[in-house]
C-alpha cells in the first residue's frame, strides 16, 4: 500500500505487510505515532509495539495487544484497524482526543510473530510460540499459560505436545518476557487489554483461582458497560465475567499477571465468530468485528481516564 488510506483493512495480511503498515502509519503521523522494538522472537523476528503519545513524560498508559495466539487472525487484523482508527480519530473525536491528551496508548499488533508467520507458511492452525523444548519433538508453548501468575497450577498442561503447554518455567517465552520487562520498566500502565478470538467474551481476572479480584464489582460494571457498547453496533452478543467462572480454569494467563502487578483494569476479549467459522472468520467480518470491539475499548479507556489510581 502507498499509504494507510489505501491499505486494505478488509483482508488478512502477512507479517511483512503488517510491519510495513506500521512504518507507513508512523511516517504519516510522526507527532503521534512511534514504533518501538521491545524484543526479538525466538526465531529472531523483531517484536514491535506502536506507541501513540501526544507528549508528556511516562504518562499513565493503556496497553492493547492482539495475536498472542497466532491463528486468531481476526485479532491481528483488528489491531491494524485500531491503529488507523487511533491516528485518524485523534483531534476529530472529542472523547477519544481527551483520552490521548492525557494518556499514552501502546498497541502490540503481532504479539507472537513466529507463530503468525508459521500460520501463513506451514500451518494455519498454529496457536503457540515456535520454541523448541528439550526432550520433546513437539514445538511451542502456549503464551497465555506462560505468565508468572498461578504458573503451573491446574488450567495448563505440562505436556509439550499439548496446545496449552505452559513451558518449563514462567516467562520462558521471549515473546512473554519482552512484555513483562516492558510493563515493569514503564511502571505506569493503568489498563491492560489482551485480545483473543473466538467466543464473544469480555473477561477479567482471575483464571487460575476462584477467589474474586479485590476490584471485582468495578471490573464487572466496566465489563457490563463495555459489552453494552459493543452489542449496540451490530447486536453481537457477548458474555462477561471472570475467566474461571465464565469459561474454565486457566493458569499462567496474561491478565492475571498484569492484575497482580497492580494494573487494575485488566481485561481479555474473545472476539466473534457469531456463526460457524471459528478461527476461519471470513475477511468480510474483519471491519465489523473491529468496529464493535472499538466501542468496548473506548468504554474501558474512558473509564480508566476518569478513574485515575
Amino acid at each position, binding site marked *: 500500500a502507498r499509504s494507510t488510506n489505501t491499505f486494505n483493512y478488509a483482508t*488478512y495480511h502477512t507479517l511483512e505487510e503488517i510491519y510495513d503498515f506500521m512504518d507507513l502509519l508512523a511516517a504519516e503521523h510522526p507527532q503521534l505515532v512511534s514504533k518501538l522494538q521491545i524484543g526479538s522472537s525466538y526465531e529472531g523476528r523483531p517484536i514491535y509495539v506502536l506507541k501513540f503519545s501526544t507528549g508528556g513524560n511516562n504518562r499513565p498508559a493503556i496497553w492493547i495487544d492482539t495475536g498472542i495466539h497466532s491463528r486468531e487472525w481476526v485479532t491481528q487484523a483488528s489491531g491494524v484497524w485500531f491503529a488507523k482508527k487511533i491516528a485518524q480519530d485523534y483531534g476529530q473525536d472529542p472523547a477519544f482526543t481527551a483520552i490521548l491528551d492525557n494518556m499514552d496508548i501502546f498497541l502490540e499488533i503481532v504479539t507472537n510473530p513466529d507463530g503468525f508467520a508459521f500460520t501463513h507458511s506451514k500451518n*494455519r492452525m498454529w496457536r503457540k510460540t515456535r520454541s523448541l523444548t528439550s526432550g520433546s519433538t513437539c514445538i511451542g508453548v502456549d503464551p497465555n499459560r506462560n505468565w508468572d501468575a498461578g504458573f503451573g497450577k491446574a488450567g495448563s498442561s505440562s505436556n509439550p505436545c499439548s496446545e496449552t503447554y505452559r513451558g518449563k518455567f514462567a516467562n520462558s517465552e521471549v515473546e512473554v518476557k519482552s512484555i513483562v520487562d516492558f510493563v515493569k520498566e514503564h511502571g505506569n500502565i493503568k489498563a491492560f487489554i489482551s485480545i483473543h478470538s473466538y*467466543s464473544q467474551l469480555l473477561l477479567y481476572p482471575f483464571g487460575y483461582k476462584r477467589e474474586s479480584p479485590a476490584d471485582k464489582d468495578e471490573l464487572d460494571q466496566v465489563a457490563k458497560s463495555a459489552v453494552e457498547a459493543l452489542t449496540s453496533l451490530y447486536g453481537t452478543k457477548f458474555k462477561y465475567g471472570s475467566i474461571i467462572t465464565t469459561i474454565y480454569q486457566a493458569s499462567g494467563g496474561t491478565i492475571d499477571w498484569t492484575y497482580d502487578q497492580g494494573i487494575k483494569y485488566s481485561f481479555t476479549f474473545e472476539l466473534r465468530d457469531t456463526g460457524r467459522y471459528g478461527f476461519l472468520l471470513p475477511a468480510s467480518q474483519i471491519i465489523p468485528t473491529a468496529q464493535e470491539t472499538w466501542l468496548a475499548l473506548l468504554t474501558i479507556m474512558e473509564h480508566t481516564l476518569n478513574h485515575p489510581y
Partner: protein
Amino acid sequence: KEDFVGHQVLRISAADEAQVQMVKELEDLEHLQLDFWRGPAQPGSPIDVRVPFPSIQAVKVFLEARGLRYTIMIEDVQSLLDDEQEQMFASRSR
C-alpha cells in the same frame, strides 16, 4: 504446508457436567490428534473441536455411544482455507 483436507470441526453440546467430563476424556486421547478450538468448559457452552479425517469415525462413535449431541460446524476445513487464501490473493492483486 499442512493440509486439512477432510478435517471437520464438530460442535458438541454437553448438557451437564458429566457430559463435559466425557468430552475431557476425549481430549486426553492423544492419538486422535484432536484440536479443541473451544475447550470443554461449562455445560451449555459450545465445544468446538477440529477432527482430522482419520479420527472422524472414531470420534463420532464415541460421541453417539455416550449420547453426546453434536453438529458438523465445518464440513471440510481445507475448503475454508482455500477460500481464505483466494480472498487474500484477490485483494492483493487488486
